[in-house]
């Protein structure tokens, strides 16, 4: 193979880009794909600068300072913030109660028949059915569950708690199963092979091996639940979100500002608590 001397190339070597065809191609592809998306999302940033919108936004933002700090309002906000935390905690706790039996029923770690070759038909079908139930539980977003429960049990925290419980039950069940199945199974299979019961095997080998990871994931989910429970307030499940929705409807900027700050602090606090808990329980 003969190499072409550099000075006979059509372009200067310092400007040569061996990948230019690829770059041009992908830029065009991206533009062609994104164009209909921009049309479909009605992407018109200039609506912000129409005089009417600018005035409304300006008034709303101007009210952010000073934030509402009257004692009655702060008292109300503290109560609602606690409610948000309580909804998240109660929801995660019920999710845990749902996830534990579903994990035990669906995990292959505790299968006796799969010790010798393939799992039996009936247990296999049962495990698959429970997996599908878990998928169904978590693939409906919590907000949709909340909308449904608000219809059925009425406005209030119960709808929020049940929504979090179902979605997070599905997530916890799935992740618990993955944690158990990815761990080292030597101890548990040895116990099962030597005639230990499945409950015994769970408590004396599976749980001690995985306890740290299981608790750490559960605490992480609790942290997510606090964010979720605020959002659920927007459809009438109570807590900080509902107050925020009310204030936004009335364009009350100063109240919204206070609540946004309280919310950011709440999420930060949950983050700190969950980091501390995970460190302690290691």
């Amino acid at each position: 193979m003969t190499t072409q001397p550099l000075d006979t190339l059509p372009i200067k070597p310092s400007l040569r880009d061996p990948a230019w065809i690829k770059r041009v191609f992908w830029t065009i592809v991206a533009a062609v794909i994104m164009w209909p998306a921009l049309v479909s999302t009605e992407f018109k940033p200039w609506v912000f600068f129409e005089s009417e919108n600018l005035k409304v936004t300006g008034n709303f933002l101007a009210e952010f300072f000073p934030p509402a700090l009257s004692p009655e309002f702060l008292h109300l906000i503290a109560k609602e913030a606690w409610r948000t935390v309580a909804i998240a905690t109660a929801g995660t706790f019920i999710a845990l109660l749902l996830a534990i039996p579903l994990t035990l029923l669906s995990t292959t770690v505790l299968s006796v028949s799969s010790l010798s070759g393939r799992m039996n038909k009936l247990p296999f079908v049962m495990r698959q059915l429970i997996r599908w139930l878990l998928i169904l539980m978590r693939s409906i977003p919590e907000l949709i569950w909340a909308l449904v429960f608000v219809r059925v049990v009425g406005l209030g925290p119960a709808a929020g708690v049940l929504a979090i419980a179902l979605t997070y039950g599905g997530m916890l069940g799935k992740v618990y199963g993955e944690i158990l199945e990815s761990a080292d199974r030597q101890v548990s299979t040895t116990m099962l092979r030597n005639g230990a019961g499945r409950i015994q095997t769970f408590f004396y080998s599976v749980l001690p091996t995985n306890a740290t990871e299981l608790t750490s994931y559960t605490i992480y989910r609790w942290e997510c639940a606090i964010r979720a429970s605020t959002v659920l307030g927007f459809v009438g499940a109570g807590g900080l979100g509902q107050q925020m929705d009310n204030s936004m409807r009335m364009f009350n900027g100063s109240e919204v500002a206070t609540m946004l700050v309280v919310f950011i602090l709440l999420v930060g606090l949950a983050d700190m608590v969950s980091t501390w808990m995970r460190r302690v329980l290691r």
Partner: protein
Amino acid sequence: MSVSRPKHWLRWDSPVCWALSATAALIVLSFWSLDLQLGRVLSFESLARMGKFLGELLSPNVEATFLKKLALASLETLAMSAVGTLLAALFGLLLAVPASRSHSSDPARWRFLTRLLLNALRSIPELVWAALLLISAGLGPFAGTLALALHTTGVLGRLFAESIENAPQDAAAALRVQGVPEGRVFLYATLPTVSPQIMSYSLYRWENNIRAAAVLGVVGGGGLGQMLSFHMGLFQMQETSSVLIAMILLVVLVDACSYFVRRMLSR
């Protein structure tokens, strides 16, 4: 050598004991203060109402004109998530540069402030952003798209900043020693090093955002969610049922796609 004894985690002076009692107290207080009336919720009457509701959901509206509207709304949801994620990746990258300390002698003056901004963007959920943006952008998919973009900018910016800080420094250091200015070091060394991570984080967030975009509309941000809240508000159960089914299909489809892509990539 001292004999290591098992930890007495039930002793009052161990932090584990405190963590466990705090958790128990939090759970008890939550249930006590919420007054959930779980008895009423799980009563026969409300179970019957739930059953009736679910029964009504079993007869979706499958008229061709309605299905066409539904398909358009689903496409709108997909478009919202794609545009939102793309914007967030761009702005996240722009903010990640000042938010990261790229080498040990980098003064990184803006690091604290940018991180504060990213944290604020991140800790406000998409739905709250959407509700706020409705005031200035009006009802519709544009508000939803921007809401997704704002929240995701916070998430991606933080992740990008971490990957820039943890990237292997060899190429960047080689250029820096040659006296190449910081901007070019970033473009020709740091960015190519972290670009696979940036891609995979962005794709992962896109997957999340499709799910988020489906529900964003409930507060008026366009897409499937807006259709859902519209028909549910009018008690049109057949239409509600179709929208719910479309949402679940979308979510399951995205999950399945990402599962197969991951399996293909990890093989």
